[in-house]
């Protein structure tokens, strides 16, 4: 009996090979999904490790030692032994450091000098002058600090330990020990302040009231000999390349947990590490991958089983006459069963075994291409679904032949089986019910892609494909009959073959599902890629975004404009303060938006936005000389002071110029300030009380300012008062009735109106009720919505955008802003960092769209979604395989039919068209419908796919794939299947003509 079955296999070896290949694809799909997942998890880990910042590759054990409290005054630096014990992990480089706050070097007491001992310091800085530290009492100073303080190697300095004086407001630093004489032996410059060596200490962060950004480095012996107060002792462990390896992530996490637990038991020892954050992110990425891969693995395996079901069914129909003969001879049921199914089962089994291997090999190849160097790590666990897929394939094969197994002989003898409409409708109803049920679970569940919801895309595709087949095939039949009635024989015969062949609906549904899965998969890949691009572009804001050391808005604007006078590549950007009252967002030098900023698609253009944000406004009153002269008449019973806020237009800074106490009567007030030596603008004039907290009321009439253009003092509408002040026109000037105290909060500012007020803003999201920017001008700056944008680049979907220059004109007490940014566009020159430094723009940290994009590309969703492309290829191959087998099975009957018609006079022309176009037309229609099904399925389920990164920025990400990738997918599926169809048609034609 076995030899008989093998003989059957050999006789129809073409069909057997095709069926084996389909089973191979089915099992390969089932193996590929977990195998890919394993590879993806490795790639996710490798990518995250490769792109992790230094603080996520290091750990720190620290202890604060205060000799006064510890009773160790005068003793040397002693690092915590426990730390040494704790940090026994192999693969880390350890650096010891000690740090103490000191004063004596800087003029200001607003911040201390960080006096730091750091192991192997000279290997990590560039000595600009002098030499490295050698003996006790030596110190290395930063290049800018030395320049500022006029120190050169060999100069003495005195430093003493310092503590914060909380009684002053704002707090200052004060010396608490005797000064220690030190010698400057060299000056340094840091080549790479972000290098791993520097750990998480932020040595080079500067800021007003924070730090100079240049620690004074010394050696351990010097620090040890100094009279110290609180000293931070740390041991930094920096992972060497290869230490945080994908092979031992679990082990590493366990080690870190152990160290953390031990450190908590020890007094005064702190253990911190960013490595767990990295490990968490890897876990999150892997979790996303575990959601994304099965989304298409499930439909792929279902599609494979459907394909086997269909093709085995066709094969069985093709040899139905043989089976009828077997049944006619009264063979026993098992003989009949074996002869009916054996041929298919042998092929499916052979394909399943090969598929197990092929799936892993396929993933190995794909992994090698996509994740070079990561490796796919073949694992037995990849094969865990292989038996299930094989069994599913076998069941599909047996179920497909149920009719041949149980039908009476009379039915088997018919060439065209009677259509079992009820059974077909029941099957479709079951699939539709499953689609609805899983779809409902998908839509309603908190995690759509878990449980039954995971099957939703698969069943929706299948159900829609079946519905499409049910709707379209009668239409094709109708068109074919009409073509016949019109005498178009070629078209009619092709159409009738499509619509009437046994199982035509299932074949059509299969090809639709094939195209739909390919389309859905490519759609997911493209939407994800677009999303990453948008997230990187709009999340970053520009090609490169560089945070520079704090500057005033005015200085930032001036420096960036000097850097890029043409406005072609650089733009000054400042973050709005935000908070509970103030709107969050950004202030841009809006004239450069178009050249520099990433801009959301479909939004109002940047040039239009710039026009809306910067309507024409009067120029600020300007002074041409150092002298500020104000002619004013004062009437007050109390004491009032006048201060003028000025900003240099030549980069000499800003100043609040004290004009002195106001005297009753008309007087001229004159002050001189260097800030205005090359010209400056007047930001505002402040009136305040003096002495105690009592309220002073008075009237001041400003008659004249020595501005370059006469100030419009007789036009009160061109001035604005903030605080308890009212402006009115006086016969020869501006009258201000004010009520002030000595408190800084109860002053009156009179400012020229040199901006639109309220300030126009572009906004994304909901327009706030009374939008304000606080902390910039004497009073909150009211904003008015000028234009809505889908998103403000780098600020998100609920934020505002204003013009930086106009915002700056409103400021009266300019202070350096935190984290000012310079955005650089695509036209930025290669040496822009050096040019920035030359203009006083000192880089603190920078990022770029490309870096962000590369980081996103390494994350779990991006890595996992490539499986969809693999699935698309497998789906197209399944469709092509099914079509090939169908063509092979149909060949006998179609040859008979068309030969018979040829004998009856059908000419070669129409016969050729009937053979040539039947399957290509089927493929074209099915692919087109498949893409529509893909679109509908995407509409229903695409929103839930975790395609964005792990922490996507607040920007609207594309929800739909672009047309080109979908057209490419359509073309690819069409091409693969059309080749099969055309070859099949050509072969058929040869057979007919050669008979």
């Amino acid at each position, binding site marked *: 009996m076995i030899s008989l079955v093998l003989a059957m296999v050999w006789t129809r070896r073409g069909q057997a090979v095709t069926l084996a290949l389909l089973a191979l694809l089915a099992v390969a799909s089932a193996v590929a999904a977990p195998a890919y997942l394993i590879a993806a998890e490795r790639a996710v880990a490798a990518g995250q490790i490769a792109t992790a910042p230094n603080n996520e590759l290091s750990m720190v054990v620290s202890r604060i030692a205060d000799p006064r409290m510890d009773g160790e005054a005068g003793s040397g630096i002693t690092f915590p032994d426990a730390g040494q014990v704790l940090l026994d992990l192999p693969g880390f480089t350890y650096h010891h450091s000690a740090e103490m706050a000191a004063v004596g070097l800087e003029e200001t007491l607003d911040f201390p000098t960080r006096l730091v001992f750091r192991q192997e310091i000279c290997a990590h800085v560039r000595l600009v002058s002098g030499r490295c530290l050698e003996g006790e009492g030596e110190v290395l100073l930063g290049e800018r600090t030395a320049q500022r303080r006029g120190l050169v190697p060999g100069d003495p300095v005195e430093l003493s330990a310092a503590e914060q004086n909380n009684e002053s407001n704002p707090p200052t630093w004060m010396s608490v020990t005797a000064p220690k004489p030190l010698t400057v032996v060299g000056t340094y410059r840091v080549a790479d302040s972000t290098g791993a060596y520097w750990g998480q200490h932020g040595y080079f962060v500067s800021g007003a009231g924070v730090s100079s950004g240049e620690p004074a480095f010394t050696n351990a012996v010097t620090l040890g000999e100094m009279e110290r107060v609180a000293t931070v002792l740390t041991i930094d462990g920096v992972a060497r390349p290869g230490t945080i390896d994908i092979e031992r992530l679990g082990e590493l996490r366990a080690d870190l947990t152990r160290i953390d637990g031990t450190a908590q038991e020890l007094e005064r020892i702190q253990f911190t590490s960013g490595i767990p954050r990295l490990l968490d992110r890897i876990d999150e990425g892997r979790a996303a991958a575990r959601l994304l891969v099965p989304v298409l693995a499930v439909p792929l395996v279902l599609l494979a089983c459907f394909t086997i079901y269909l093709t085995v069914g066709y094969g069985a129909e093709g040899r139905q006459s043989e089976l009828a003969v077997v049944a006619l001879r009264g063979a026993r049921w098992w003989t009949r069963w074996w002869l009916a199914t054996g041929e298919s089962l042998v092929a499916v089994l052979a394909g399943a075994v090969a598929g197990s291997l092929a799936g892993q090999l396929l993933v190995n190849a794909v992994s090698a291409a996509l994740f070079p160097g990561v490796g796919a790590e073949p694992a037995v666990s990849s094969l865990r679904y292989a038996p299930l897929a094989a069994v599913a394939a076998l069941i599909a094969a047996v179920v497909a032949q149920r009719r041949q197994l149980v039908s009476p002989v009379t039915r088997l003898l018919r060439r065209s089986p009677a259509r079992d409409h009820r059974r077909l409708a029941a099957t479709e109803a079951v699939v539709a019910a499953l689609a609805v049920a899983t779809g409902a679970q998908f839509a309603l569940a908190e995690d759509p892609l878990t449980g039954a919801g995971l099957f939703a895309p698969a069943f929706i595709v299948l159900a829609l494909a079946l519905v499409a087949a049910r709707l379209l095939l009668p239409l094709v039949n109708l068109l074919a009959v009409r073509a016949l009635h019109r005498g178009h024989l070629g078209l009619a015969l092709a159409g009738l073959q499509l619509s009437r062949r046994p199982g035509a609906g299932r074949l059509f549904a299969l090809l639709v599902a094939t195209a739909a899965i390919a389309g859905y998969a490519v759609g997911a890949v493209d939407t994800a890629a677009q999303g990453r691009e948008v997230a990187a572009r709009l999340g970053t804001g520009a090609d490169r975004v560089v945070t520079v050391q704090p500057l005033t808005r005015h200085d930032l604007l001036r420096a960036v404009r000097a850097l890029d006078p043409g406005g072609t590549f650089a733009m000054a950007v400042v973050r709005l303060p935000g908070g509970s009252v103030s709107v969050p967002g950004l202030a841009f030098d809006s004239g450069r938006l178009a050249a520099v900023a990433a801009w959301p698609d479909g939004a109002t253009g940047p040039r239009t936005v710039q026009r809306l944000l910067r309507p024409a406004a009067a120029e600020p009153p300007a002074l041409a000389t150092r002298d500020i002269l104000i002619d004013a008449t004062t009437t007050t019973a109390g004491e009032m002071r006048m201060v003028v806020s000025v900003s240099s237009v030549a980069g000499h800074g800003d100043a609040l110029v004290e004009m002195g106490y106001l005297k009753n009567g008309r007087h001229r007030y004159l002050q001189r300030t260097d800030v205005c030596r090359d010209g400056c603008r007047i930001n505002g004039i402040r009136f305040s009380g003096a002495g105690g907290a009592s309220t002073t009321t008075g009237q001041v009439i400003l008659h004249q300012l020595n501005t370059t253009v006469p100030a419009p003092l007789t036009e009160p509408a061109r001035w604005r008062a903030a605080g308890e002040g009212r402006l009115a026109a006086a016969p020869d000037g501006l009258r201000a009735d004010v009520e002030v105290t000595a408190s800084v909060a109860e002053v009156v500012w009179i400012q020229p109106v040199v901006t639109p007020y309220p300030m126009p803003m572009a906004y994304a999201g909901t327009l706030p009720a009374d939008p304000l920017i606080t902390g910039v001008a004497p009073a909150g700056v009211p904003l008015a919505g000028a234009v809505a944008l889908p998103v403000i680049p780098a600020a998100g979907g609920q934020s505002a955008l204003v013009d930086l220059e106009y915002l700056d004109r409103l400021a009266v007490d300019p202070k350096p802003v935190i984290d000012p940014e310079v955005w650089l566009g695509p036209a930025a020159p290669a040496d822009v960092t050096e040019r920035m430094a030359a203009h006083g723009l000192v880089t603190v940290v920078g990022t770029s769209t490309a870096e962000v994009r590369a980081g996103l590309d390494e994350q779990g969703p991006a890595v996992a979604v490539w499986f969809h492309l693999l699935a698309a290829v497998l789906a197209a191959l399944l469709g092509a395989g099914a079509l090939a087998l169908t063509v092979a099975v149909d060949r006998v009957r179609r040859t008979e039919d068309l030969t018979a018609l040829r004998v009856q006079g*059908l000419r070669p022309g129409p016969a050729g*068209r009937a053979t040539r176009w039947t399957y290509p037309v089927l493929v074209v229609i099915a692919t087109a419908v498949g893409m529509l099904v893909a679109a509908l399925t995407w509409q229903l389920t695409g929103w839930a796919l975790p395609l964005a990164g792990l922490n996507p920025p607040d920007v609207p990400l594309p929800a739909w794939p672009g047309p080109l990738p979908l057209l490419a997918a359509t073309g690819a599926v069409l091409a693969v299947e059309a080749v099969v169809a055309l070859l099949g048609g050509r072969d058929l034609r040869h057979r007919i003509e050669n008979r």
Partner: protein
Amino acid sequence: MRLPPGRPPATNLREVAGDAGVSRDGVVGMSDVVGRGSVRSLSVDGAVFGYGEGEAVLNDITVVARAGEVLAVTGTSGAGKTTLLNAMAGILPAREGTVAVEGTPLTGRDHAVSLGVVLIPQDNGLAAILTAAENVSVAVIATGGSPAEARRRTADALEALGLSGQADQLVDELSGGQQQRAALARGLALRGDVVLADEVTSELDAANRQKVFDLLRAEAARGAAVVFATHDPEAAAACDRELHLADGVATWPRP
């Protein structure tokens, strides 16, 4: 024949197609070439037939099927009746000798079709994906009939064979007898000058056999040369002449 006066008969398919005009589907309008009532005979002269390189099945066959009469071809199963009819239909070329319609040697089946040679094959030659009516219509249109003419002739032929009720049934939904009658209906609807009927009554009951025979007789009366292959002596006896095939050789029990 409706060939233009003064021109020799077409000798190949291209010539015939050129004369007859080609429809949108490229079919040769047989009815344009061979009108109703035209008189043609089919002659086989000293022909030898066989398949491939094998031994000849029929040797030195000479027979003329004349217009207006029914020629019976008899013989036991395997005697070569189907071979002879296939050769007369242009499907099987003669190794030696000629097969000609009105003196025009046949070059192939397409040529034979263009000369009005209709074959009703033993296996019915029906396309399974088509209904009974469509099988007839396709053949009529393929041989040059207009769609309207095809519908009319199809309806007439099916009615003549008692198949009006089964016109829209797929071939596989018909019984063997119905299929045979559908094939006959198609043959009659084509209104050929030469009608080759191969065992067309084998699956019919007596009444239907008589009806079929009457219809074949009517075809002859219309002017067609009818060749009727059968192993039924009674049916053969009802024919005008009888050619008997045995051991590859033809004899004339009733010349």
